[in-house]
């Protein structure tokens, strides 16, 4: 097997890795920055065959908004789940189950972003994604209204993600 994949440099990656390097070393010293750039370039070049896909972010401002809404959701659902665990929900029966959500998002990075959001939010777990990404199955700890969940996911996360990645 001859390696077929070509190698190339990805500037975004180099930048990100250099940032990472400086963060790790907790410094802004120029020689460290230089070392970081060199190392980042080398790694970017060396591993480019294993990373054939590249994400392109179209609307950076949406990212910030999305991050903010996710953060609030995470905090909210944390407490919601805590209440359930501690048995503080007496007024109704907790009904957990699988929910299928039709998806329009196709970009792999967008889907990955969705996965991160779903996972980071307590109470929802990613179960399955159809091979063509047309359907997403989630397990939801406290399904009160299935359709509400579908709407929630599609509006609050899928749309912004599509705006960012597609």
């Amino acid at each position, binding site marked *: 097997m001859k390696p077929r994949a070509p190698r190339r440099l990805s500037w975004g990656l180099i930048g990100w890795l250099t940032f990472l390097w400086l963060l790790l070393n907790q410094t802004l010293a120029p020689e460290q920055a230089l070392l970081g750039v060199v190392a980042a370039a080398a790694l970017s070049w060396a591993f480019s065959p*294993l990373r054939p896909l590249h994400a392109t972010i179209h609307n950076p401002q949406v990212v910030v908004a999305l991050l903010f809404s996710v953060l609030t959701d995470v905090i909210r659902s944390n407490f919601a789940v805590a209440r359930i665990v501690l048995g503080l929900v007496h007024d109704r029966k907790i009904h957990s189950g699988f929910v299928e959500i039709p998806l329009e998002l196709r970009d792999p990075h967008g889907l*990955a972003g969705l996965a991160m959001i779903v996972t980071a939010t307590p109470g929802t777990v*990613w179960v*399955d994604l159809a091979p063509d*990404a047309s359907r997403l199955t989630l397990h939801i700890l406290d399904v009160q209204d299935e359709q509400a969940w579908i709407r929630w996911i599609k509006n609050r996360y899928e749309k912004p993600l599509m705006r960012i990645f597609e």
Partner: protein
Amino acid sequence: MLLALIVILPFAGSLCAALLPKHARNTAAAFAGAVALACAALAASLYPEVTAGGVVRTYVPWLPDLGLDLYFRMGGLAWLFALLVTFIGALVVLYARYYMTREDPVARFFSFLLAFMGAMLGIVLSGNLIQLVVFWELTSLTSFMLIAYWWHLDDARRGARMALVITIGGGFALLLGVLMLGAIAGSYDIDIVLAQAGHIRAHPWYGATLALIVVGALSKSAQFPFHFWLPRAMAAPTPVSAYLHSAAMVKAGVFLLAGLWPVLSGTEAWFWLVCGAGGLTLLIGAINATFQRDIKAVLAYSTISHLGLITMLLGMNSTLALVAAIFHMLNHATFKASLFMAAGIVQHETGTRDISRLGGLRRSMPLTATVATVAAGAMAGVPLLNGFLSKEMFFAESIAAGDLTGFDFTLPAVATLGSVFSVAYSLRFVHQVFFGKPGGDLPRTPREPLRGMLLPSALLVLACLLVGVLPALTLGPLLGTAALSILGADMPVYRLSVWHGLTPPLFMSFIALAGGTLFYAWQYRSGRAMRPTPLLSRIDAQRVFDVANVRLVRAAGRAANVLFTGRLQPQLVLIVCLALVAGYFALDGRWSRGIMPLTPVDPLFALLWLAGGACALGAAVQAKYHRLAAVILTGATGLVTVLTFAWFAAPDLALTQLTVEVVTVVLFLLGLRWLPRFHEWDDPRRKTARARARRARDAVIAAVAGAGIAALAFAALTRPTVTGLSTFFIENALPQGGGRNIVNVILVDFRAFDTFGEITVVSIVAITAYAVLRRFRPAPESIERPRAQQAEEDLAREALIDNEEDLLPRGYLKTPAVLVRLMLPVAAMISLYFLLRGHNAPGGGFVGGLVMATALIVQYMVGGTIWVESRIRIHPQVWIACGLLAAAAGGLIAWLAGDPFLTSQELDIAGLHLSTVLLFDLGVYLVVVGAVVLILIALAHQSLRSPRKRVQLADTEATSRDEPVTEEAG
């Protein structure tokens, strides 16, 4: 130096003879004969110096501290024996020239014969007891080779082996005896030993020493109870029998007894051991000889018997008996060698040695018949032949010794009875072979042999006659010299003559002759001549030996199966238990806790270990039937270990253990795929009482081991810190080592050598694992795809990637793959971070390398082997090699500065401040990446081969069924 030459010459000759062409009969014989004669001449030339008790000595210090020096010593007895050995040797060589056929590879024969002669001369001329043992064992070895000359014959192999085992065994006994004798006397020097006769006999070790030396001598001289090897050695070519088994080797034992006679004899123990064995042998040999069918066997048993006679004489504790013994040694050598040669001629000319097939040969071979008859007469003790004289002396001494010891009747009776049989078998030998009616269907037509073949035998017979008629003139002075060399001042007065008057011995001789003749007549008439020996023939020594051998091997085999069991569990039990026992006894009840107060328990830590301990125990319980669970539990225990390291301020350890932990889990899982499934509920073995008992035992061992190590740990933990090395390391890490992370400075500088060894271990493991896995053969049921992938079609369809051109996995791994690929460069950057900062903060090459390797492995996990390897090519072996070389280079640079290996050097190259330590750590990094990737990927590749096999299988099935096959791509 002449003495040394006498011994060396035959050995040198042996080497030369070995190099001669295989079948050069004449050349080899002439050469060997010349060597023998040269030795004889050399020995003879020393006669003037050994007369009158003179001794010739050659002394070469060699290992004086151990008392082992080259010391050749020739007294009268030695001179006589040297002459006997060389002269008869020469005759045997001449005889062998004719005896061996054109096809025989004679070079080997003469080579061993000369080597034997050298060894024999070595025994005779040794002045150092250890040196004597050396040559003694050499005669055993060379005789083995000579007996087994016709190694393609089964009898030759069996006989040779028995002779070897018996004589070598005797040799070991002799060695010990001699060692003890030397210890008593303070030297192995015969002169010194001989000078301390009184001291030796009074020493508490005397009995054991005597017994051991006698055992050695008896085994060599084929004396009871070791006599049985000699008849079996008759499978040797006849020249060998004539030489070794009449004249030379078997005489070594009695020679030794005679030589040590002054120190060892004169006690009851000596009499009982030596005389007793001799008497028994005399009778057993004689009786047996009377009933043998093989003419060589007759001679072999007669040899045993005559050596018994000599031994008996030696055991009688009388000086005159000693003289008689020496006299009979010489006489026996002459007539027995001659008889063996005659027997060989008969076999050579007729093609058989079976006495029942032979007969009347005096007509076809009159000369041979004459020679053999005269020799047999000497053997029987017929007057006017030499055998008569020594036998006469033997009778006289048996009477004397009987008087002396109170066995006034037994000893003469034994002597006479032995002689009766001696006459009988001599008569039988001559009568059945040369007289009587001619044998019928002989393999060859008998005729007189070539002169050269008969000559040696005839010469010996002539000697018998001469000595027999004129003893005082011929052998007298020589015998005197020999006896004098042993006895010195104790030399008795005796007279060698044919006629001593009408004495009791003469009477005994008469009884022997008459009795023997009558016995044979009765035996012949009654048709018992061809029967096996009554009673004694029941014991087939060879068979007993072989059976004993087989029993020994089997018993040893059974014992070895227990003593060296191949089962692993007992071995591990032993190791653990012995360690416990060793620790327990070393402590010897002195365990004590140290003086330090306990540090207060952190409940968090205790809770942590509550979890950790539960996990460890869980792993122990689950490991058989729930392997996955056990792996998980082990992993959790590992994490608790990591936290422990972190807790007690060992960040480097925690980092390393953590990365190792991750890789180990993956490794175990990769392995788990190839192990058989099996279940608690279908394992009946679990429930047997034995299994329960075993588990209980192991549980106890485990508990005790745990308690023991905990006790040791506690004892050490409560003792004050011993600050030796660490103070130095802490104080010097920064100023001398140039690093803030002391552990790292130790690893790459103070004790870099350990790290160096450690990466070597990792490299070796990687290449070994790779080599094993390359030829790995999975078990048949594991070749199938895992059940999880077969169970449900929809899941099984989720093969990773159909096409190498695909950029993402198709199925469930699609999204994870995106995320994991995001991680790759990050992980790589972190690995570099750990590598480069290690010297000042936790991290280092090892952690960095493991991070990098794990990052790559994860790509395999989400991408699949085929896809990853179609995109990128990793050469782990090159990484390993480069790593090792980099580390070595980091160490070797120091040499340029004149510093020792692995001394850290600061280099300033183009303004960059670099240290060889970094190069070294880089080497570690490369090795770790290479090794981990090599092992894990080699394991992962095993799954690659199974679909391939599956395809092949399916292909063959398809062709046989002629159906299309659908196959998921692997």
